[in-house]
């Protein structure tokens, strides 16, 4: 079986590392830190990428975003407590520093320790209060309750960065210094952000077609396959500009490209624009993608009673789900699936691979059913996916080839 994906991971430890005894070696930076750290928070990351052991390096940005969130809330708390001041004291931000030395077991559980400024005692200061308020705010959203009155609304926007890379099946439990805490998910994050404004930011990975490039303003227009029907604006930089220019065709859309970036969404989850564009790469098999889309568009038109009086129209969520997953599977060198509507409004994708008949059914209501049958031996595999990640689905399909 070919290697279908790779990622870098930090190893986890069963127990926190025993702190080395403090040595007087002339006051190097590490020695200053060693022995002056106190536990501040445990973030237990669960689901998706975090269930395979270790901590994906790509998820480390969430730890930095958490520190920024704590600092931002703490600043607002300070200003609320000091109404005569317009800004925080010099050195306020620098007085708070989190360090990661340990990732404990139990999915991935990074232990964030706070550096104690030399000659001071850690106390229940604004940063600790900020941590508690963040926990309370998340708890309130989970329970569909109003935010704590003391939560500074100006700080809500900071949730845009924290959790931005979370996938639908992933979550962060904010354990603080206790053994449990509120669970932060994409939905909780979105609800928090919509308390503050009308938009929120979220990672976007999709296929798109570039229709316009403005080199002076360093922006372009991209129509996204899973996005709104019209093109949305996206900023360009020195890295993405040449790639976007390469796929621009005169007077019409160029070939499809895979993009990743950060999207700005409204309260109805509609993509308004891209706030950042990280990557633009050509789609390997544009013809197969076109054939897939044509077929999906065909079955999307089915009306009530489409099969001799039986059959309901496709469920839009199931169709959108199939549209995303089936295109992503092509990046694993899985051939284009044959695609069919099911009578109850789902989408069934089928492959015939090396003597096996394989199908995946995207059912209305968000369930996924998969089965692979060896037609010679009659043996069947009917996996229960632990997540709905494309990687897991691809592994299942590839086992047949």
């Amino acid at each position: 079986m070919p290697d279908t994906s790779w990622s870098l991971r930090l190893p986890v430890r069963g127990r926190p590392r025993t702190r080395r005894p403090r040595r007087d070696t002339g006051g190097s930076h590490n020695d200053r830190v060693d022995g002056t750290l106190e536990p501040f928070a445990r973030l237990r990351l669960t689901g998706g990428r975090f269930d395979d052991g270790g901590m994906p390096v790509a998820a480390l940005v969430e730890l930095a975003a958490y520190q920024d969130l704590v600092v931002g809330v703490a600043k607002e708390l300070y200003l609320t407590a000091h109404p005569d001041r317009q800004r925080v004291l010099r050195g306020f931000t620098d007085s708070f520093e989190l360090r990661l030395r340990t990732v404990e077991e139990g999915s991935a559980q990074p232990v964030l320790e706070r550096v104690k400024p030399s000659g001071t005692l850690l106390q229940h200061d604004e940063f600790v209060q900020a941590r508690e308020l963040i926990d309370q705010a998340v708890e309130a959203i989970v329970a569909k309750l109003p935010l704590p009155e003391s939560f500074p609304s100006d700080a809500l926007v900071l949730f845009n960065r924290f959790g931005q890379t979370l996938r639908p099946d992933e979550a962060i439990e904010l354990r603080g210094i206790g053994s449990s805490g509120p669970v932060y998910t994409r939905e909780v994050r979105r609800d928090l952000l919509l308390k503050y404004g009308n938009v929120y930011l979220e990672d976007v990975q999709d296929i798109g077609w570039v229709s316009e490039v403005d080199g002076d303003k360093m922006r372009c227009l991209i129509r996204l396959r899973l996005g709104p029907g019209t093109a949305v604006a996206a900023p360009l930089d020195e890295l993405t500009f040449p790639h976007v220019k390469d796929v621009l065709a005169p007077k019409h859309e160029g070939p499809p490209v895979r993009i990743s970036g950060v999207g700005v969404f409204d309260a109805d989850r509609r993509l308004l624009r891209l706030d950042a564009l990280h990557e633009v790469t050509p789609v390997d098999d544009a013809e197969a993608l076109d054939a897939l889309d044509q077929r999906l568009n065909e079955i999307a038109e089915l009306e009530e009673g489409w099969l001799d009086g039986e059959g309901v129209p496709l469920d839009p969520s199931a169709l959108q789900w199939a549209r995303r997953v089936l295109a992503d599977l092509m990046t694993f060198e899985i051939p284009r699936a044959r695609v069919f509507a099911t009578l109850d409004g789902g989408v069934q994708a089928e492959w015939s691979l090396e003597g096996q008949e394989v199908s995946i059914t995207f059912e209305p209501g968000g369930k996924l059913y998969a089965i692979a049958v060896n037609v010679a031996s009659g043996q069947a595999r009917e996996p229960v996916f632990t997540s709905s990640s494309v990687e897991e689905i691809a592994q299942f399909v590839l086992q047949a080839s």
Partner: protein
Amino acid sequence: MTGDEEDADTSASTDEAQSPEELLEDLAELLFRQVHPKWIDDGSPTSQAFVPTKKDAGALSIARGSLTTAERAFQHHTTVLNLESAGSWAVTVGEAETAGLRSFGERPTGNPHGFIDFRELGRKASERAGKILLARARDRGCLHPAGE
């Protein structure tokens, strides 16, 4: 197994008149299956076409090769029953048996309609059997109209 099916299975030789079902035993007999055009993609039917729908109540309709042809089965389906079909595909009684399925004809003898029996199967077993039938039918290709 239903009571009717038990009759067909165990009493056929002694009391055929009481059972509306006749167990098919000629393993080489072709069983024609009509496939709706919406269930064809890239020239191949879906395995769903070889699994009964809810209204079929576990009986996958077929036309018996010993009593009709692929062409006549197609015409009967599209002109007499006025239903849509992309063509006649076929498996044999033996292939159905390999998939763990028994096949039945209907009495009075001479009626080409019959069925492959899924009545006792759950989802996994039905899907498994449907995929084996699909593979065998696709190996044979569309028998009428030819080249479909």
